[in-house]
Each structure stands twice: as structure tokens, then as C-alpha cells.
């Protein structure tokens, strides 16, 4: 185990993946008169989806009502997630979201297959254009949900399909999207998160204003772009001093102790850390450049 701190994130991902799965299974069983895990609530995933309140935002504001299948619990969950996002950024995506977790797990297999080529199949310029597609998804979902008066996104929602693929409640469309996402994860890291997730778009925008941000110490950074290559969501970290990028999911892979950065140029902090030992660090950096260890 290279880095124990990474496991705090993995542990939380596994917990939510299993916990939400048990809720979904319990709900399906409860509908047929059984309940497998008495200590786990048997709620509809629609009722605890944080994206529900966003989907229903127009009818919520204009008529004070939610579209069918959504409940007050959606608003509560949504507010809680937005609060955390405002503090830390889009950590929901990297620490909680089960669909993100699934993509990450498949991505680990992809990394083994394609090694350094993994997550490099889409040119950066094309990626920079494609990532705006999730805003289109978001707008389309909000408008179409309001017009239709029902959860229209459920027809293509891979998250719902992931937990209900064994029931007849899932549409073919959502199963296809889930399959494409899973296959895509073998080549590209988190394809759904980067290019299509409407909730990720919301959290990304809120995350831009988060108190904690990943910051680059430009004094010591030599723009080697190793961090750019490590970023799962293809952010060109070396181009920013403050990574408040809307795509950043705060996975912390670039700030880990075993991250690719050999100079510890990246931090996750409230404000920019002053380089107290700038002169000493500069010495270390120049020595490292020369291959000398201090």
C-alpha cells in the first residue's frame, strides 16, 4: 500500500457503493413484500437522488412542487451536497458517487491494459470542447423535465440503471448509456463524469467558488506537466496557479504524497501557502534538476 491517505477516499467510495446498492435492493424486495436488510432503509433511489431537486428546479421555483417520484428528501440531500461542495469542491464526485466509483474501478483495468496510453485517446483540444456537453445535458434535462412533468432523465440515467438493471423499471436507453459508459471507462477515465454528467456540471460550477482549492506553487513548479498527465479529468494543472476548474473532482491524485509531482508544488488549502523556505526549496529543486540529493 503506497499511500494510506488514498484509502480514506476508496473506503468511502466502497461504503456508498454498497450502502446505496443495499437501499436499492431492499426497495425492490419491499415492493414484492419482502425486505432483506431490516437495518437498511428501503427507499426509492429517486427519492434520495441529489440531482432530483436540480431536475425539478423550474417547477420547484414556479409552482412550489416537485415532479412525480421526487420528494422533500431530494431537496435536503441536494442542499447538504451543495454545502460540502461549497467548502471542498466537487468531492461528492470523487468520494461518494457510485457511478464515478464504478468508472474508476473499470478504469483501473483500462490502465493495466493500455498503460500510459490510457486516458490519452481523446486529444486535449477535443476534450476541451467535449467537456461542455455536460452543460447541454444539464440544460436539456431541466427544460425537458419541466415540459414533460416527469423524470425524463431516468430514461437515459446510467446511475439508476446500474442499481436496477435486474428490474423491469429500467429503460433500454439507460442500459445502453450504462454499457457505453462502462466500455468507455476502459479507454478514458470517468467518461460519463467528464462529458455527460449533468449533476457533475452543477457541482463543478459550485466548486469553482469553493473555499478549499488545489493550488500550485508557481515558485517551485517547473511546468513539467507530469500532474497534467496524472489528472483523471484531463485538467492542464500546470497552466493554473489556482485549480478552480469546473471539471476538477478533488480526487487529490495530484496532491498525494506519491503523486507524480516530485517538488510538492500542489497543495489543497484555503489560501495560497507562502513558501517559507523558498530559498531552501529552490536549492533542493536546482539540486534535483542536477541529479544531486541534499
Amino acid at each position, binding site marked *: 500500500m503506497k499511500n494510506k491517505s488514498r484509502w480514506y477516499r476508496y473506503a468511502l467510495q466502497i461504503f456508498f457503493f454498497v450502502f446505496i446498492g443495499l437501499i436499492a435492493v431492499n426497495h425492490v424486495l419491499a415492493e*414484492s*413484500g419482502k425486505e432483506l436488510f431490516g437495518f437498511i432503509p428501503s427507499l426509492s433511489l429517486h427519492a434520495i437522488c441529489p440531482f432530483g431537486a436540480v431536475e425539478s428546479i423550474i417547477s420547484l421555483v414556479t409552482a*412550489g412542487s416537485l415532479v412525480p417520484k421526487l420528494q422533500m428528501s431530494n431537496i435536503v440531500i441536494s442542499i*447538504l451536497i451543495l454545502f*460540502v461542495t461549497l467548502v471542498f469542491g466537487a468531492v*461528492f464526485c470523487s468520494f461518494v458517487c457510485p457511478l464515478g466509483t464504478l468508472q474508476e474501478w473499470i478504469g483501473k483495468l483500462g490502465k493495466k491494459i493500455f498503460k500510459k496510453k490510457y486516458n490519452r485517446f481523446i486529444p486535449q483540444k477535443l476534450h476541451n470542447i467535449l467537456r461542455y456537453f455536460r452543460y447541454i445535458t444539464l440544460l436539456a434535462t431541466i427544460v425537458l423535465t419541466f415540459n414533460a*412533468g416527469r423524470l425524463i432523465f431516468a430514461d437515459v440515467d446510467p446511475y439508476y440503471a446500474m442499481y436496477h438493471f435486474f428490474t423491469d423499471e429500467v429503460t433500454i436507453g439507460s442500459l445502453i448509456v450504462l454499457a457505453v459508459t462502462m466500455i468507455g471507462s476502459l479507454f478514458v477515465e470517468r467518461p460519463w463524469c467528464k462529458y455527460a454528467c449533468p449533476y457533475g456540471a452543477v457541482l463543478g460550477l459550485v466548486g469553482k467558488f469553493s473555499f478549499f482549492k488545489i493550488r500550485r506553487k508557481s515558485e517551485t513548479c517547473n511546468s513539467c506537466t507530469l500532474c497534467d498527465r496524472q489528472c483523471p479529468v484531463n485538467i492542464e494543472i500546470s497552466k493554473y496557479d489556482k485549480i478552480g476548474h469546473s471539471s476538477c473532482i478533488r480526487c487529490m491524485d495530484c496532491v498525494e504524497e506519491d503523486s507524480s509531482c516530485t517538488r510538492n508544488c500542489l497543495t489543497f488549502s484555503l489560501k495560497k501557502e507562502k513558501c517559507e523556505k523558498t530559498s531552501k526549496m529552490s536549492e533542493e529543486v536546482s539540486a534535483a534538476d542536477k541529479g544531486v540529493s541534499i
Partner: protein
Amino acid sequence: MKKIRLIIAISLIVVIFGGVFASDALGFWQTSGSRNLWKSESSQAGEPHEEDIEGTDHGLEVGGSTTVSMALEMGIPEDVLLEYLGDISNPDALVKDLITANGYSFGKVKGILNSYIKID
């Protein structure tokens, strides 16, 4: 850096579960029958509002919070309800509870009931 990741993990657990428990204690955590948020006071007690009934493409659907009176209002024939629900004498009884008590799968029966819903 180890601390930051641990702080994020703990914060997420505390905020999500703490928030849910707190909102439950305050009465905000409603996972059924809370669609009409600030208009429900205007509706008469015991009388279902059309917006309170779960919906499909045409606006109505039998769901977990649907009562017998709501199902009848949706236009589902009484004999069909009797067949799957058994006793329908209590208009406030939940359709879901009666179906499962009658030994049927709610997931399957709700599909059958939905096919009887009359669209005006």
C-alpha cells in the same frame, strides 16, 4: 495531506448522515407524499390533490404513497382493485400495503393497475 483527505471523508459522512437525521428530526425528511411543497396547506385534508398523486407520461401512476381513494380517483375499476388489494373499505389505506398483504408483488401489480388508469 493525509489529514485533508480524512477530514473530507469524515465531513461527508457527518454532513450527509447528520443532515438527514437532523432534517428527519425537524420533519423535513419526507421520502413519500411530499411533492407539493408549499401549496399543500391549501388542499383540503384527506382529499388528494392531483399533484400529490404519482405520475407517468400522462400524469398519473400508482406509487408507494397511493391510497385506495387515490386509485379509485385515477379511474382504476373497483373490481380490479378488489382482485389485487382484497379489502378496499378503508379509503386511506395504502395500495402498496394491501397488495403485499394480499401476497402479490407490488412492483408487478402496480404495472397492471397503471394500465387501467383513465386519461381525461
